[in-house]
């Protein structure tokens, strides 16, 4: 399946909420979701995407740190400016640290609202074209 967006977050309910939100904003978007960071990373790195999808990654997963994922994605090279980080953390400093990665194009503190979804949707459309 050729996704436009892959969401990685260990919060199952949040995945449902985000999918519903995207459905509202852009029902045509094809979305894949992962609860586990390792699985997601393996899938992403091993897939031969004709067009690499946009990624939405939770910074603090249970099995793997978001930073680790970002490092691997930078190494891979196909995901420059294709990753939006989301986090429930309100810790200062994370945002600045994330900007060191080439793949990161946005950093959003939860809650993710429809407003933020619209902005991210625009980025996804930009990525597709």
């Amino acid at each position, binding site marked *: 399946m050729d996704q436009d967006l892959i969401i990685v977050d260990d*919060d199952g*309910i*949040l995945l449902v*909420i*985000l999918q*519903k*939100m995207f459905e*509202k904003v852009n029902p045509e978007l094809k979305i894949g979701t992962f609860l586990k960071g390792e699985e997601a990373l393996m899938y992403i790195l091993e897939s031969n995407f004709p067009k690499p999808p946009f990624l939405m990654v939770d910074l*603090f997963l249970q099995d793997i740190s978001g930073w680790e994922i970002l490092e691997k994605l930078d190494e891979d090279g196909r995901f420059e400016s294709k990753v939006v980080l989301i*986090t*429930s*953390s*309100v*810790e*200062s400093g994370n945002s600045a640290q994330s900007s060191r990665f080439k793949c990161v194009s946005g950093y959003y*503190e*939860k*809650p*993710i*609202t*429809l407003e933020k979804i619209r902005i991210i949707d625009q980025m996804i459309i930009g990525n597709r074209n």
Partner: protein
Amino acid sequence: MKKDENPYHILVVEDNLGDYVLLEEYLSEYLLNLDIIHAENYQTASKILAEKEQAIDLVFLDLSLPDKSGEELVVDITKIAIGVPIVVLTGFSDLEFGSRSLALGASDYLVKDDLSPAVLYKSLIYNIQRLNFIAELKESKRKYSDLFQLNPSPIIVYDQKSLKIIDVNEAASSKYGYSREEFLEMDLLDIRPKSEERVLLDSVKDFWVMNSNNYQRVTKHLKKNGEILDVEISPAKVKINNKDAGLVLINDITEKLRYVRKIEEQNETFREIAWIQSHVVRAPLARMMGLVNLIESQEEELNEELKELVEYIKISARELDGIIRDISQKSEGISKNS
């Protein structure tokens, strides 16, 4: 000639009245405020000395008394007259004994036939002064010895060349568990754990080539019972019997370090709590806020009452979010300061 106006209390122990009168006469020539007490035998003299121990400045002692004489007399009198100079009066016949009496504790000796007011006065002044000086010296020695012995911090003195321990104070004995005698059989290496030997040798070397007096190290010491102490040592260079020695003041910081480690552990827990605040607690709240946002977006399906209720949920969620942010900020401040 001007007389010495200082008051003197002199005990003259002399059984020959003629000799006593002469002595009194001679002394009065130089001394204006003379209080002279006469004792004719050892018995009386010892009573007076026992009663007026502090009041008597000097004793003139004839060597042959009816109830005691010679060596025994000098020895016994010096035992009673603690801190009082004793000037022995001898005749030509026992001149030799005069010099021996000095070894027995007398301060001076005079030959009776050579007595004159000037000789007596000089001897009196000289012996009183000398005793005061000796007493001061003893006092100052005692003070320094107390500073060392009664110092609450352990102090160890070692010989620079052999590293042998040459002196310790009481605090060192009670801290390390070795008696003073045991300590004097040991060297510095014996109070270090094996692993610290190299460190010790290096730091002793460093210390002795260094010119500054400001040398402090934190290291580990070994007690007799095998326990290891964290200590802060401050050595100083001293001379003992003209040899270089190190005087090491030891501050046991085992408790302090334990305390610091405990605080560090607590800080670690604090950091964990801060992390939980910042990430874990907020996650379900953020999710709820997302849900409210979704519900609000379906406005057309909500009646007025539900809209109001959703609004209240939103207000409550925002309030809780504010509280969590406050807590996070505070705990972040703590973990940054630590």
